[in-house]
């Protein structure tokens, strides 16, 4: 176990190098968010006072986007998928096959440390921005909701990681995985509720999307926070999310096992 603690600390040290880059990334990322929020304000301005869109008031909508931004900082994969694909292509994983260290656990440690640092840095602009919009920002109803939100974010992070990991493993079979990563990301952007709350879609479509893991990456944790899913719906949601974590893990292990048979250690 201690060896993975070392990996964590190496991960922290490595990503700390990019702290300024992270700060820019987080600050620049606020620009499109502000643009989207202005458009929403313009839409609500054309409505009667207090009128709701998809059961969101203007404050609800603003909070939704701020929370998406927050969940994104906590869970998004930054460079992990590229690095994994590069490790495979350049033959770097050979050393992991020889050492008593598990590559998946190793990558997970790097992902976690990377996210910790990124969130730490991103917190500055994100908190400042949230403060500016505090009038429209809602706090969680109670400590229990906040706790469940964090649990849900943690699971979202794990699903996100397993998804990225599995996709990067395609590098065992294809030369360039970046197109696959971008295509997947486009779907994720829409289906996870990153672009807009899924409640705005026609009910049948939203229902269909909820059969995929995507809503559990973003829409679900945010809805937990906002108290939009409660009671039995909340518990089944968390159970489904946990099931996706397990499924993601199993898939990652399976694809790795298949890939390693194909692996020819080029350049290693």
């Amino acid at each position: 176990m201690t060896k993975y603690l070392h990996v964590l600390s190496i991960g922290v040290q490595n990503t700390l190098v990019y702290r300024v880059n992270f700060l820019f990334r987080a600050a620049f990322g606020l620009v499109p968010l502000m643009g989207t929020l202005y458009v929403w304000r313009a839409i609500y301005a054309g409505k009667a006072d207090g009128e709701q869109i998809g059961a969101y008031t203007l404050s609800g909508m603003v909070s939704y986007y701020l929370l998406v931004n927050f969940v994104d900082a906590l869970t998004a994969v930054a460079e992990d998928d590229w690095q994994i694909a590069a490790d495979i292509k350049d033959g770097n994983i050979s050393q992991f096959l020889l050492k008593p260290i598990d590559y998946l656990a190793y990558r997970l440690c790097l992902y976690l440390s990377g996210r910790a640092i990124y969130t730490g840095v991103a917190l500055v602009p994100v908190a400042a921005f949230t403060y500016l919009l505090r009038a429209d920002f809602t706090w969680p109803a109670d400590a229990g909701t906040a706790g469940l939100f964090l649990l849900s974010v943690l699971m979202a992070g794990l699903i996100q990681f397993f998804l990225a990991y599995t996709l990067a493993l395609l590098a065992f079979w294809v030369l360039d995985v970046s197109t696959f990563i971008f295509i997947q990301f486009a779907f994720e952007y829409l289906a996870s509720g990153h672009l807009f709350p899924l409640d705005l879609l026609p009910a049948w479509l939203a229902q269909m999307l909820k059969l995929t893991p995507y809503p559990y990456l973003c829409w679900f944790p945010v809805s937990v926070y906002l108290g939009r899913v409660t009671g039995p719906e909340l518990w089944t949601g968390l159970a489904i999310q946990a099931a996706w974590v397990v499924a993601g893990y199993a898939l990652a292990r399976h694809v790795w096992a298949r890939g390693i048979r194909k692996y020819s250690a080029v350049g290693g």
Partner: protein
Amino acid sequence: MKTLARYLSLYAAMWRNSVTREMSFKLNFVLWIVVELLWFALQLVFMSVLYSHTDSIAGWSKWEVVMLVGCANFIQQLFTAFFLTNLTDISEHIRTGKLDFMLLLPVNTRFLVSLRKVDLGSYINSACALAVMAYAAWRLDFTPTAVQVAGFAVMALAGLTVHYSLMFLLVTTSFWTVRAQGVVYGYYNLFNIARLPDSAFPRGAFKAFFTFGLPMLLVSNVPVKVLLGKLGSPWEMAMLAGMAGACLGVSELVWRWSLRHYTSASS
């Protein structure tokens, strides 16, 4: 005239090189087009979801906004076709010392670093963006006059110049910071607001900055407004043209200044 002909023939040679390069990875070439089309479709889906809950956003109807998104994408794809990869490569040229070699060649270095590679897939994507604009015009039951089309073309060119100059200016900073990856990512975020209707933004610091500082709110809004005859005043055209000229001028000054202070890396 002779110089122009020489540069044109140089560019033709770069074109041939790029075609050869791209065609050695045909599947990849097609997949990248698919990626870009998906992201374009995503923006259109976003707008249509918005318009399923409202009829007008700050005075823009659904198909007008589709036209705006199409125009923003058209300009962005042209920018990618001509410049994007080249500009992102500049920091690599600096880091690896390749720039030294380019500085020695008997051509304008800015021309070389800006246009070396051609992104062919983006021509197809910009054509798709034009097709979406044409469809939106048809849905609006609108036929632009020749003057409007010409005005659109000139303004789109000005928008393209703004994107190019600003991005060029940003990557020039890699003379000092070495890593320009964050810069590229940052600029992509700016594209995002270029496709939103400018009237949705209230007067204030945000709007002022993205009009007079980084004129993202002019880049695609003005061409579409010219095309649709939606201009508030002809001043908007002058403003985009003026900003394009200013951005280009500033980027050239900074580039020259940076080159004068360039001391080469490694090699």
